[in-house]
């Protein structure tokens, strides 16, 4: 093993360790933090980054050590980063809907409700009310 390879290995190992740590922290946060909204922070960030590191490590490993092109990890990482905010948004909304009363939330400051609490948001297009007959 030449020097270059050793550095590469150290780098990959470091990525793995960092990734593992973040992953652990994310899941640990899930246990430690007190309420649901707090817990939501842990996995959305720590775990996502943890798995991201592991993925990059993997990509580096295959490309630099095994000599195989491997871009899938990048794709997975991007996908996770793309979806994490949506997931968090939905879980937050679900939690608010189930467990937090509207009165306990700060006002929007613009006179309208927060969307989750706004019961009037039913959108109706009479033209489309005919059954969508498309067998």
């Amino acid at each position, binding site marked *: 093993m030449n020097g270059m390879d050793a550095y590469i290995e150290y780098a990959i190992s470091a990525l793995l360790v960092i990734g593992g740590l973040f992953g652990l922290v994310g899941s640990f946060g899930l246990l430690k933090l007190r309420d649901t909204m707090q817990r939501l922070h842990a996995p959305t960030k720590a775990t996502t980054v943890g798995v991201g590191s592991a993925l990059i490590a993997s990509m580096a490993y295959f490309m630099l050590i095994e000599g195989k092109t491997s871009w899938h990890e990048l794709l997975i990482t991007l996908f996770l980063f793309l979806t994490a905010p949506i997931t968090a948004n*939905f879980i937050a909304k679900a939690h608010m809907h189930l467990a937090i009363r509207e009165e306990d939330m700060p006002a929007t400051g613009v006179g309208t409700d927060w969307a989750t609490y706004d*019961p*009037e948001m*039913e*959108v*109706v*297009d009479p033209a489309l009310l005919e*059954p969508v007959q498309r*067998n």
Partner: protein
Amino acid sequence: MSLALIAALPFLGALLPGLMIRAGKNACALVTGSVTALALLLLGLNAPAVLRGEVIHTRIDWIPSLGLNVNFFLDGLGLLFAGMILGIGLLIILYARFYLSKSDPMGQFYTYLLLFQGAMVGIVLSDNILLLLVFWELTSLSSFLLIGYWKHLPEGRQGARMALTVTGAGGLAMIAGMLILGNIVGSYDLSVILENKEAIQSSDWYLPALILILLGCFTKSAQFPFHFWLPHAMAAPTPVSAYLHSATMVKAGLFLMARMWPVLAGTPEWFYIVATTGLVTMVMAAKIALFKDDLKALLAFSTVSHLGLITMLLGFGTAEAATVAVFHIINHATFKAALFMSAGIVDHETHTRDIKRLGGLRTLMPITFAIATLAALSMAGIPPLNGFLSKEMMLEEAAHVVWGGNRWIMPVLATIGALFSVAYSFRFIAHTFLGPVRDDYPHHPHDPGIGMWAAPAFLVALVILIGLVPMTAAAWLVQVAANAVTGQEVEVYIKHWHGLESPALWMSLLAIGGGFVLLATHARWLAMWNAMPRPEAKPMFDAVISSLSHLATRITDRLHDGAISRYFAIGTVTIAAAAFYAFWTGTHTTGSRPLLPIEAVPFLGWLAMVLATIAIVIFHRNRLLTLVLIGIIGLTISVGFAYFSAPDLALTQISVEVATVILMLLALNFLPKQTPQESSPMRRFSDMAVAGISGFGIAVLAYALMTRDFAFPTIADYHIANSKPEGGGTNIVNVILVDFRGYDTFGEITVLGIAAILIYALTEALLRAGPANDRLLAWAPDQRRAGDRHPMMLVVATRLILPIALMVGVFIFLRGHNMPGGGFIAGLVVSIALVMQYMASGFAWTAARQKVDYHALIAAGVLIAAATGVGAWFNGMPFMTSDFGYVHPPLVEEFELATAAIFDLGVFLTVLGAVMLSLASLSRIALRAGETVNVEPFDIDPSEGRRIANEEAR
């Protein structure tokens, strides 16, 4: 051949009355009569030979392997019976023409009558006991129709069912008996069986066979204790009674005893069973007949009594007694048919058969009186009528029979029977015809036209003729018949005078005298009879049948009450028990395959799965949570597949699991969100035990399998070896799916396609007017709904994720043949991507922007798959033979163009179409439940700073 024709004619003719009835009643009767007459004529053509002592055979193979053949033979006994059946049948047809009223469907009647006649002729001509059984049961069925002919009468219905039940049951017993007999002899041909007396009587199976066959005979011939059905069968129209209970149906039992006499009779078993039954029946029925006020009931019990008499004679087991039996069969047929017809005339004219309301008809109906009286006197055994002759001979035989070491029982009881017979016969005459003319008949009587009395008159003429010149008129027939019954030459010498030393004379005189006394003192006896408690057969029978049927209903409805959870429990226990039994009774050695070491992380995965599974049992009443937990289980299984070298499975499992959960979520929206606690702790415990044992069994089985090697080299070796060179793909699993076992996959996608069109059809049914539709229209969400139906973040993210996901779908599809992937997974991936789009902006919004015919997708998928299969035919290869080649179209991605890939395209389309069609169906249900369709992809317009809803929608 002509024998078969004789038997077949009535059946063939049975089609005619129904047709001819349009031409009128006379035509109908004429046709029926002609058919019968033709059969009788054919019989007559055969008669001379039989009388010469020949036996005529006709053999037609039907089911040789079973030994059931259409073999007929005609001997003296057959000739006698067939003659009676057809001859009296002809008279009945004549009589019925005038008896039946305008409202009675005559065509039906004659059809039934001919069916019955054919069955009877079949019985007496059969030379094969299985064939005989066929006809035997046919008499039960056709008599059921005849007895129940007057459908409006409850008595008719009940009588018919009772007759069917009793005679049918006896018939079934007889089937067993006959099969035993056939098995002893090795043939079901009667003529063969009749030659094997030794074999039969020495067999261990003789007694069972005897009892079973006699059960058939006794029920049919209304012997004690099965006699009770016969009087209730009197609800039938009189022609039916006259036919069934004089010459035909009830005589079938006698016929069979006579027929089997050569091989069954002569043993103590035979004697004690048959003679005793006959004796008891004779006396008992005669006694009952004394007290019956209904003319037909009286005649019915007299019939039972006379049948008992004949049975007794056959039971004696001597050739002489059997000869007398034959003679009495003839005599009874003549006078009893005449009597029934007379009773019918009385009923027809006076509109009553109640002896208490009759009397004095002698002057009003002189012809009827003459006929009835002569017949009744014959029944009473008054000389010189034919009844006298045979009764005298019967007494003579009885006088010499020792029963259980006692010389007196038989003669005394026989005399008593005769005495009763005299009494009821005289009562029939006296209380109906004699005495003063009354003025309170329900209908003013007079003699009917000749059409109605001609038949009984003819029979009475026979009564007299045989009575006067028995040797000329009947002896020849008795001779041949008795020869046939006994299987030996018998000497028939019928005479009026047996001499003073004959005990029969004195017994007979005693009977006549006693009969007169009994009749004179009838009122007193009647009072005694009425005061006596006596078991009524009908209520008892009804009680038995109805309790049987109630019991059956109880058992049936208790067992099959729709409680599927119990069905499941029983099924599971059964399966587990059978599997354990199979294992314990087999041999087993433990496997020697080395185990894989347990690693830490897979162990954690195992733990996750175990905990999730336990959680699902604990929390299952919270349905949403249940679905979340299913997600975990699906995930761990999927990872497990990946770990154990099954990448395709991992892909499939996870995508199917998500699709399943989404479907269940969609359904759960309309279902209760909680499952109530309904079962008792005890029940839950037992369920847990059942589940635990079964699961344990499966675990042990799986462990045993995993830890051993295959007993034989597996066929998968071939797949591994040929996947690349012959199948053209490196993903062996995929090559198996689309090639080696592509036919499985073809079936599998068809299942998916059917599932989708089923769901569609079901949705259509639900959305039609009905409770489901009403419930949907009135549906109110059972949970609070958040405001933001289509959150902007998801919508925007989906704009990017959907195209990427579609691309992933294409990728997975294209590489499936060589790497994990393939049509099915690709179809699901694309489906899931679309589901994401639906969740973002709603199904209807999405569907409105992309018109896809889901039905067409499914059908096209199946058709493409089928077409790739069929395509091989044009290469001269079998269905689904694939072809492949590595094509390198310039500039395009290098992939292999295998027909298997086209097949996989079919798979892809079907999966996509199926999921889409199911989702579309659910969306329609949601719309019916009040969901609305949005105009914009999301509900908030940030550019305007407002909700889109309020202005545009309302």
